[in-house]
């Protein structure tokens, strides 16, 4: 195994961090990650899986079609290094696939048939939370991870994990902000409509609200939708402004 130069390593980490701040595209990011991981340790292929909300792994990215099929095979059969690493939160290192039939009776023969001879898996983990795993395949027997290879690959997986979790937190925040502001808009527009109807009918705002509610019920309107019509196109609901 060749030793990775510090410069090259730094460049890859900067690239990963950079992708996280730019316009973030999840699949693009994961593809970039698998490609850089593969180039770092001269792996034949790298595949990456992320857990969905129910904690089930899904294939997300791979450096080629071959690895995609092998990864899907793991998922179908619920057996293999990625699943193992995901379940334990620990890396799986330097497993000779030609001698792994006991460990993975279905997966090992399938992977060797696809031309892979060795495999490693790294959990995407932040503290106690595991959100996925990255599989690294080699096609030459004896090409093993040595020295700093393991901590470097794990560090790459860690950086990706932090980025993914941050991105999810931001996405959640954006969705909730949108909902909150939407709810606020609904609340406000109803008050505005109450004012409009109260003025037009010369009633109190409470009576105006009753009028609006009755109208919404009898015309099968959602209250909020009717309120919108009142404040933007009052003329279209003459029953509401004429007693």
């Amino acid at each position: 195994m060749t030793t990775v130069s510090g410069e090259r390593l730094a460049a890859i980490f900067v690239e990963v961090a950079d992708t996280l701040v730019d316009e973030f595209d999840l699949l693009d990011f994961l593809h970039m990650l698998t490609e850089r991981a593969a180039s770092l340790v001269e792996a034949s292929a790298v595949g990456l899986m992320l857990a969905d909300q129910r904690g089930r792994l899904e294939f997300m990215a791979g450096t080629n079609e071959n690895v995609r099929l092998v990864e899907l095979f793991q998922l179908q059969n619920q057996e293999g290094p990625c699943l193992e690493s995901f379940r334990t939160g620990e890396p799986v290192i330097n497993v000779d696939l030609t001698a792994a039939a006991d460990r993975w009776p279905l997966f090992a023969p399938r992977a060797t048939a696809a031309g892979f001879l060795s495999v490693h898996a790294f959990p995407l983990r932040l503290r106690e939370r595991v959100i996925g795993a990255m599989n690294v395949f080699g096609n030459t027997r004896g090409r093993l991870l040595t020295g700093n290879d393991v901590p470097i690959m794990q560090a790459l997986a860690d950086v990706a994990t932090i980025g993914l979790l941050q991105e999810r937190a931001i996405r959640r925040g954006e969705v909730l902000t949108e909902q909150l502001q939407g709810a606020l808009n609904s609340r406000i527009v109803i008050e505005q409509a109450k004012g409009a109807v109260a003025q037009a009918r010369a009633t109190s705002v409470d009576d105006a609200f009753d009028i609006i509610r009755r109208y919404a019920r009898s015309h099968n309107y959602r209250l909020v939708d009717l309120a919108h019509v009142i404040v933007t196109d009052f003329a279209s609901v003459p029953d509401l402004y004429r007693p």
Partner: protein
Amino acid sequence: MVADGDRASARAAAIRSLIAGAPGAPGHVGLLGRVCLVAARELAALGAAVTVLTGDGLRGLSAASDPVIERLEELQFTLGEGPCIDAIESRRPVLIADLSGPAMSRWPAYAPAVREGGVGAVFAFPLQVGAARLGMLDVFRRQPGPLSEAELEIALHLADATVEGLLDRQEEEGRRGDTDGLAWDVGNRAQLYQAQGMVMIQLGIALDEALVRMRAYAFAEDRRLDDVARDIVNRTLRFDLDTP
């Protein structure tokens, strides 16, 4: 770095418990009110105000540590200029340690008006998540002078805690299926929106223009917008008859 991170999260937790422990009503407006009280106290400020914007950039919810501060906050929306508006547009804090400096030409209407209200420095913090802008937290101090590094940290934690508090509440309501906001207590702003609807009909104008008219009236008469709204709803003030 780890030690720094631990210290920061301990500070964030301390701020959250200060907010939780402050007096105030439950509900959204209550949360904002507690944030204002903590901000005013912890930052040795004249007062603080929080505004949550609607999707259209209107002041949807708001709270202030007292009525004078509420008026200073509202003034920015009347005049369409000020540090908080800049903070939300630029997505970063706007820290004006001395309102008598270049701020006077940056906000020619707003800066003199708040100085008249006894404010020497304004610090505005956007409440935001990723690309979404939720609102702002504004801190008003009597004496000119910058926030210390520790105070700045507190202010940023306060802004974060406000966003978290609002979003957690939203998530909870989403889980209960209560997402239309109908049950929300929007505080005294309910009256403001009712008045807006009434003025719209009185003058036969669009809704947003109705609010502009009300703000202009409040400014010209040197009255609080909330009081003007109350008079409109009580029908002691009519825009189709009384306004110049």
